[in-house]
């Protein structure tokens, strides 16, 4: 298969996994930060936001130190499960997940905070259990805001470059994602390949952003 399509397929796979992980992590963290109060909540929020402001290469270096052959977590994974994440597409998933995480949990937190707590109280008095309230009241009302963040996180994961290159490297057909392939193509002077890759990337990003724009939080629109 053409190198561009291979890279696109890999990018989509990595971004899809990262988005699935962030959907769970982002909703969980966003809800926790929005609905509970505990000491250090603001500090936790700040730490979780770090991947958004730190250079991806720095983040990649952290991951390399942590997950690498000499890293504490890397050694543990190797010894107990025989898993090595460095230079694998799963490693790229972890890098993309962390980089995109703030874009998912922040809107999720805001969306949960925007849900009127009185509606949850009303459901409580009507006899509905806490877990059912989450699925019947809180989540449906916060859903659009969450989804907008999830789509942004997907695009961010799709375009991830710095941390991915540090952790997963650039093995064609194995860990070479679209954005890494663009860099390699330009480095090698293959302008034709680069143009094709850039065009594909731009189109995918525009489509997703249009979808995200349609879902921007606002007035509830009925089906």
């Amino acid at each position: 298969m053409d190198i561009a399509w291979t890279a696109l397929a890999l990018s989509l796979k990595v971004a899809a996994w990262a988005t699935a992980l962030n959907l769970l992590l982002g909703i969980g963290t966003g809800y926790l930060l929005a609905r509970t109060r505990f000491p250090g909540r603001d500090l936790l929020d700040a730490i979780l936001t770090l991947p958004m402001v730190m250079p991806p290469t720095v983040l990649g270096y952290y991951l390399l130190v942590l997950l690498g052959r000499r890293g504490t977590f890397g050694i543990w994974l190797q010894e107990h499960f025989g898993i090595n994440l460095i230079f694998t597409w799963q490693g790229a998933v972890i890098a993309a997940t962390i980089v995109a995480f703030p874009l998912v949990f922040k809107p999720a937190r805001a969306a949960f905070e925007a849900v009127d707590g009185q509606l949850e109280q009303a459901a409580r008095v009507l006899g509905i259990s806490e877990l059912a309230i989450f699925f019947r009241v809180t989540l449906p009302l916060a859903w659009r805001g969450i989804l907008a963040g999830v789509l942004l996180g997907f695009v961010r994961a799709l375009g991830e470059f710095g941390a991915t290159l540090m952790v997963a490297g650039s093995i064609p057909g194995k860990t070479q994602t679209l954005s890494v392939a663009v860099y390699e193509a330009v480095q090698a002077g293959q302008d034709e390949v680069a143009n094709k890759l850039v065009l594909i990337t731009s189109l995918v990003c525009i489509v997703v952003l249009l979808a995200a724009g349609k879902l921007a939080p606002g007035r509830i629109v009925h089906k």
Partner: protein
Amino acid sequence: MQLDLDIRATLRSGKRSFDLHVQCTSASQRIAVYGPSGAGKSMTLKAIAGLFTPDAGHIRLNGRTLFDSKAGINLAPQQRNVAYLFQDYALFPHLTVRQNVGFGLARGWFNPRAREKLAKVEHWLGAFGLQELAHQYPDELSGGQRQRVALARALVAEPAALLLDEPFAALDPALRVSMRLELSQWQQRLGVPMILITHDPEDARILGEHVLYLRDGRIDTVADNQHEVKIG
């Protein structure tokens, strides 16, 4: 209705603190807690519903203990079998009128479906003249219609008591008068006991059989059938 209330709570916000100590027993079907804003009316009503936990005391409704700090009893709001009418009605904006009314009857993880017609729900929609509006969403309704939906939603589970938080504050004066009469008639027809909190003397006069005057977190006077009685 047998209401036995004795609750204490202290709330602090910065340097200010507020002491609530409400003690009363009543056998009336129509209790009105009347007082200026900030007197602790909402807190008292929320304590009965289980939405606010007092520091100490007890709450008994029809012989059932809902809260007793000494015995370590504090039933969750879900277990109290009371209905609560919020000041701005707290209708679920993502559900239709029919789904809102049927909300408490669906106990699982899913909301009632928009097309599902339960006999009980249809009965209350009919009783409140809401059948024409059954497929509409709360933001498409007028204030009076919203209140009827909230009442239907509250009554469909046949609660032991109906708690009303300033039920007419959000309505314009003309509508307030007619809704007040409507609520009064409904209460008499259904015989459902109600506890109402209000800062409007007209509400207390028309809907209150037993009126507790609350001021600065304490019951100041109790009026029974318009005979005022001072308590110590």
